[in-house]
């Protein structure tokens, strides 16, 4: 009930400041109300809108369940950090059907939700509390275009702050997926190297990678979805997970563990990225393949301290978001601890 009230207040506020007429307002409230679920059985896919803006995106309902995190020792192309496999329990959540696009990210990064001219109403203090990226001294799209292209070269900190901003805008908790949630969603019930099986020859039907990308990321959602309706989980851009990266993380987990996560610290690196990218070979796109961020991703940022918002050499990195049905205790209230003073 509390959540509904919060959503109502936020919706009401934005309905007022964005000058919607009464008819539109009733409609948008009804849409919000229908999305608030309390039981897994009620979980339905929904379309999220960002108040004060025309941007929309689809969220897919992911049922809870149990799976083997990591890959079997027999898997071709396997990395040493993918084992040993461990049984993990995942709680229900919603996940973005597609990677976050520039259309979505720019609203946050360039304050497109803040009216250019002062309004008679006071500004919402909540969204002011989220810090926003300083503009980059470069073309953040690196010439690959914007719009429906996945947002690239943004830092883990920026992705986390985007989620926090979206949470305050919508009244729904958004964050990066944990590494375990990401792999569970990618596998969609499969135990093979890819969600569609072990045959890398079929990869071009599902993802953009070194063999078919022609050296560039592509607009989201152009390939086949996985069985749970998620696009570009294999390839296009590698995706940030919430977790800090530890090579031996799985060996610290007990079988049956619920929602494991290695909470990120104030250190800027390394954090986990998953799914492989347009510049990777097929083995890096496997469901279990793990990659992680490095200082080199900001190599060509000539300023000190370097930007905590933009990378200069991470053209293959993007992200997608989740909305947990019930947030686990350890992640409640979590925000990025990275500041300009943070160590590498």
């Amino acid at each position: 009930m509390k959540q509904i009230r919060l959503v109502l207040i936020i919706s009401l506020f934005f309905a007022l400041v964005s000058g919607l007429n009464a008819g539109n307002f009733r409609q948008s409230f009804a849409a919000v109300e229908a999305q608030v679920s309390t039981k897994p059985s009620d979980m339905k896919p929904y379309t999220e809108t960002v108040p004060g803006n025309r941007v929309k995106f689809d969220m897919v309902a992911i049922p809870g369940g149990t799976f083997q995190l990591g890959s079997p020792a027999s898997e071709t192309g396997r990395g040493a950090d993918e084992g040993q496999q461990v049984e993990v329990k995942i709680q229900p959540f919603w996940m973005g059907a597609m990677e976050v696009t520039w259309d979505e990210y720019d609203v946050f990064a360039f304050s497109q939700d803040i009216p250019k001219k002062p309004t008679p109403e006071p500004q919402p203090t909540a969204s002011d509390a989220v810090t926003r990226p300083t503009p980059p001294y470069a073309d953040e799209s690196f010439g690959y275009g914007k719009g429906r292209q996945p947002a690239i070269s943004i830092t883990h900190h920026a992705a986390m702050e985007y989620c926090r901003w979206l949470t305050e805008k919508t009244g729904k908790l958004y964050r990066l997926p944990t590494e375990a949630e990401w792999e569970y969603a990618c596998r969609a019930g499969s135990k093979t190297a890819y969600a569609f099986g072990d045959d890398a020859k079929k990869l071009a039907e599902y993802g953009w990678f070194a063999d078919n990308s022609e050296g560039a990321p592509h607009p989201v959602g152009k390939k086949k979805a996985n069985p749970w309706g998620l696009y570009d989980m294999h390839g296009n851009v590698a995706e940030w997970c919430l977790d800090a990266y530890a090579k031996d993380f799985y060996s610290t987990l007990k079988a049956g563990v619920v929602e494991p996560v290695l909470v990120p610290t104030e250190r800027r690196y390394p954090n986990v990225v998953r799914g492989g990218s347009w510049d990777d070979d097929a083995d890096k796109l496997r469901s279990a393949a793990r990659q992680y961020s490095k200082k080199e991703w900001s190599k060509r940022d000539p300023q000190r301290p370097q930007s905590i918002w933009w990378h200069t050499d991470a053209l293959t990195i993007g992200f997608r978001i989740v909305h947990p049905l019930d947030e686990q205790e350890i992640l409640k209230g979590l925000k990025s601890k990275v500041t300009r003073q943070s160590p590498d």
Partner: protein
Amino acid sequence: MENSNDKNPSRRDFLKTSAVAIGATVATNLINNAAYAAGSDEIRIGLIGCGGRGTGAVDNAFNAAQGVKLVAMGDAFKDRIESCKAELGKKNADKINVPNDRMFVGFDAYEKVINTKEVNYIILATPPGFRPTHLKAAVAAGKNIFTEKPVAVDGPGIRSVLETYEQAKAKGLAIAAGTQRRHQTGYLETMKLIHDGAIGEIVAARCYWNQGGLWKKDRQPGWSDMEWQLRNWLYFTWLSGDHIVEQHVHNIDVVNWAMQAHPVSATGMGGRQSRTSPDYGHIFDHFAIDYEYENGMHLMSMCRQVVGADGNVSEALVGTKGKCQVNRYQITGANPWRMERKQGDDPDPYVKEHTDLIASIRTAKPINELKNVAESTLSAIMGRMSAYTGKVVTWEKALNSQESLVPAKLDWGPIAVPAIAIPGQTVLS
């Protein structure tokens, strides 16, 4: 037109000097060849301009070679010196030896840094408007220099820098400029092929720096006009040269490098359409310039700082035998080529600039990039002059212009914001 690049070290020389640099990090037997440093091969940096770029440049120099120390710092603002020292001290406290009496604040701080006897390596990282004065003083004092780009904002500034270049050459001083693409592996490999004729004769070129907006700092109570302008230096032509000079100079420099020449005239247009508030000083937010080179080749150049518009930072060449997308290290046509690239294996070009410069000092084979960067800077200034006035501006007209943008006297008093240029009305003196 004198060819500006033929005195530049070839790529092979660069590779040789950088190979030496790796050895020189331990090879103290090279000290005897070092003509500059009075019996020591230690690089002792005097930093002038302690903002984010100056701080980064010192960090780059620390990573470029062994035996590098920071010994003096200067800035118009005390807070910038302190934040710079703190930032550098996080990782390299052992390389910083800057006591309070070698931290200089104010408009004359540069002289005090340059005249600090311990200093033998000056880093110039203030806003570009000050650069000609700083370069002149550093060369007069016999110091080696790493200078950021661009090196001036007007014709008188460029004339001064070209004189300084000759003096530096006569004294055997080493100068590297902040055009880091000239030290970036992919650009070097690509340019070698272009100069060897991989695309035949260049008949057309395009270059861009189109991006969103940049930071600004809101005016605080108690700030003088001067302080407000200095802290927002991007938006004042006397400080930055406008964004075509401050930023797009990189891409124009790449085409000059490919052509081994500079343009002889510019026909440009531009304006101020999205950044209309006085917060953004008086500069434009977009330019489009048609440059002509002496052999008739045209370069189409665009730059834009407009939020929400499409981005593109790149350089492309069209030749009689093929095309080259320089920034992607890619050639198509009769001699197709693409540089093998693994993510992360390119040396950091910002570090490599200092590696090459320090190696050239230690081997007593000083590189001097000042003329190249001065010509690329004037190319950009010529474009701005044409866009501001709406007239065709020739190289001679730009070079010999009497228009001096930097105030004769620098102090903390009031300083007016110049009128925004209007093509057809604004006149170039």
